[in-house]
């Protein structure tokens, strides 16, 4: 059993990692609803973002691995083989596709080897990963040992691709509900049903399985400098994901845009009283399109962040996070500040549900694991039932704009 402080250091990063995608997607919903379009397609949009984002990351990884593999097989391994044979009078042959070998060296031998290997490849190879391989005591799996800037770059690319896909996919909803004045619930439901089907079908076409597995670990062991701060460093800057920090930054920017800019002011007016906005020469349709697209972008990003931080693989689901984000929006009363707290609440419930075995009093209850898994959803029901009375939903959300109506 973990001590209390260990437990806290274990749980807090998990809660934060859960909070960020929830809050981000809820903020997306806020942009859409405040512009006047109810967007329950977030689940589907998130899923599409997650799917294409994961696909992109996986592709980048494979490409990279191929390059590495070729270097490793053609240059690095033969050199090491020869070097080891000459230097230590040992024969090693690295099996194909296996990067693991235990040379069983003494520390002195190892240090010398590193020096020589580095000297040999220096200048030719500046890529950091080679250094990483060379400096590990034993030649471990490349995928596992690589924790560098380039890898994090893939995560960022994946998130951006997710955002783009989210925008494109959300346009379908925007077109149906703004131009065609369709029922926004039905249109969104259609997208929600389409997204997993599309993801499964496409994944099977490509990989013969519906799973998209991300090979590398995008966790940052410790953020330089910040990770060394006592307590705070342990809580917030260790074992975290770059995507988490990115999500927080995007959240802050989005809130500034919403409350401090002309566009934000106009967007908020369109969800409350579009007739008023129209009479002041504001183009309701443009603003609503923008609102839905922002929600698509945020949901798409949220999807990728979700995959990066929770699952090493994407299996045509985002576990209801999109719907949970809508609950967060409602519990957060359509206000960004309260959304953070709502997201923290739901994230904590979720983490409690999944790490219950580590928490003494929950473990003592000896309930079925399924019951713990229900915690976040039951909490959603209860909290919404209690708080929905004072809801401050945008007055025009869900209503197609009709200029003739006064």
């Amino acid at each position, binding site marked *: 059993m973990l001590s209390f402080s260990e437990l806290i250091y274990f749980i807090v990063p998990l809660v934060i990692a859960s909070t960020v995608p929830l809050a981000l997607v809820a903020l997306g919903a806020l942009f859409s609803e405040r512009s006047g379009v109810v967007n329950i397609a977030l689940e589907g949009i998130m899923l599409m973002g997650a799917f294409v984002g994961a696909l992109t990351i996986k592709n980048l990884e494979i490409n990279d691995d191929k390059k590495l593999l070729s270097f490793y097989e053609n240059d690095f391994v033969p050199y090491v083989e020869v070097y080891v044979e000459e230097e230590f009078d040992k024969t090693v042959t690295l099996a194909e596709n296996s990067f693991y070998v235990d040379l069983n060296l003494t520390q002195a031998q190892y240090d010398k080897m590193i020096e020589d290997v580095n000297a040999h490849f220096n200048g030719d190879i500046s890529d950091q990963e080679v250094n990483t391989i060379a400096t590990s005591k034993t030649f471990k799996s490349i995928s596992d040992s690589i924790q560098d800037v380039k890898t994090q770059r893939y995560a960022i690319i994946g998130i951006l691709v997710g955002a783009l896909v989210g925008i494109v996919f959300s346009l379908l909803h925007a077109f149906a509900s703004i131009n065609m004045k369709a029922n926004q619930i039905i249109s969104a439901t259609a997208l929600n049903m389409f997204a997993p089907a599309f993801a499964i079908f496409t994944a099977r076409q490509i990989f013969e399985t519906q799973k998209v597995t991300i090979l590398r670990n995008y966790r940052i062991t410790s953020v330089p400098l910040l990770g060394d701060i006592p307590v705070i460093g342990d809580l917030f800057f260790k074992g975290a994901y770059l995507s988490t920090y990115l999500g927080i930054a995007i959240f802050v920017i989005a809130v500034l845009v919403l409350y401090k800019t*002309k566009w934000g*002011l106009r967007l*908020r007016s369109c969800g409350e009283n579009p007739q008023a906005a129209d009479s*002041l020469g504001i183009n309701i349709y443009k603003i609503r399109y923008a609102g839905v697209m922002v929600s698509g972008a945020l949901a798409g990003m949220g999807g990728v962040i979700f995959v990066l931080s929770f699952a090493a693989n994407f299996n045509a689901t985002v576990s209801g996070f999109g719907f949970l984000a809508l609950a967060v929006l409602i519990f957060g009363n359509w206000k960004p500040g309260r959304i953070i707290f709502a997201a923290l609440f739901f994230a904590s419930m979720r983490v409690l549900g999944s790490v219950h075995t580590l928490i003494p009093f929950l473990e003592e209850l000896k309930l079925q694991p399924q019951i713990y898994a229900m915690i976040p959803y039951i909490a959603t029901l209860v909290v919404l039932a209690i708080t929905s009375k004072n809801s401050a939903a945008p007055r025009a959300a869900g209503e197609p704009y009709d200029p003739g109506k006064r």
Partner: protein
Amino acid sequence: MEYIVEMLNITKEFPGIKANDNVTLQLKKGEIHALLGENGAGKSTLMSVLFGLYTPEEGTIKVRGEEVVITNPNDANVHGIGMVHQHFKLVHNFTVAENIVLGYEDTKFGFLKFDDAVKKINDLSDKYKLKVDTSSLISDISVGMQQRVEILKMLYRDAEILIFDEPTAVLTPQEIEELMGIMKDLTKEGKSIILITHKLNEIKQVADRCSVLRKGKYIGTVEVENTSVEKMAEMMVGREVNFVVDKEDAKPKDTVLEVKNLTVRNHRLLKDVVKDISFEAKRGEILCIAGIEGNGQTQLVEAITGLTHVTSGNILLKGNDITKFSVREKNNAGVSHIPEDRHKHGLVLDYSLEENLILQSYFEEKFQERGFLRFDEIRQHAKKLIANFDIRSGKGPTTSARSMSGGNQQKAIVAREIDRDTDLLIAVQPTRGLDVGAIEYIHKQLIAQRDAGKAVLLISLELDEVLNVSDRIIVMYEGEAVGEFDPKKTNENELGLYMAGSKRSEA
């Protein structure tokens, strides 16, 4: 004479009707020009054309002598035209300042420059004596202040030509007085004003000239000073109008409705919207509950008719306690109700006229047999009411209620409620949105019911109606009855002070 705005020979058609048929309106610089007409005469359409919300089929618009094309509110704004809409176009959860700058924002590096905006608003508000609190939310301020915000919105955009669309409909007499003063001040500063209204007294009070529309057609323009109110009314309606409601003195008999210490709590707002009200309505009198919209009249009626729960107190009909009765039980006990919102509570818009006429009685023996409706009886019933109450519609009993005009929809409701022949008739704003002819008709019906020995409870916001039709007046303010008056011994001013809460009788 120099005109600042000229709308020449404007024709605007909607499917089926010509909303404006060759209408001309010429506005001089610095005048208040009234635009008079009944509901549906085309006033709002004409102004929407000037404001760029509609594009006319024919006609030209000149601003300061130059022909212009206005296709959206931004164009109107560029030409210095601003409008205070009848239903305020304000965002309820924005502050006053946010509402004023919306759509006309100044920014620095993409961020709003609010301090400068607030300073400009305060300068304008000092200059034109338009007192507002820039940091309050719209939902927290009075209707009068909301209107001042609308006016500031135009001035903030440097509008020279100001359109006021029925600006007094929602104001107390004192606020109306104040508004009239503001309008005169504005013209002194060189602004030109178009005042849309159907209230002749106001025109007489402030306007310089008056153009009249009737059924989309331009009737003429008159100098207000040389024209009598009667003459203008005749131009508007097309015939002579009887302003005084003919009625004899009331002869109240026994009590029909008794309301005792009635309190209704709104659980969402956490406050009592009707506070400890007691009154009696007698046979042979019209009791009027007056007050500004939103002071608890709606909830009072809902409590009496069973649409909302009574928190405490009792409602007695002919001595029987009906407080806890359901709506149907109350109907059957003898309550008729002409509701405030005829679309929401009065009619099922997608039902036919004949179906609407049996909404409260379809279950009676007369109209059903073993659960099946007796359509012949229903048709006969509808035909009788259509004939007796002169309800006009396209296809008679089978007309869909939605396709009928507002006046005829209201007539249908009045017919249904009166035909039920109950002891108590509750009429909530029965003439809202109706034209002069229909108003006359409804008033006559109410008085006829009174003379037939029924108790009539009239809830009205229009002081003319309150003073002309009723026999006794109770003023409500913030859920309380603040005074009781004899219409013969009071006047608009006195009622206005009570309605605004600045005076109250001690019980």
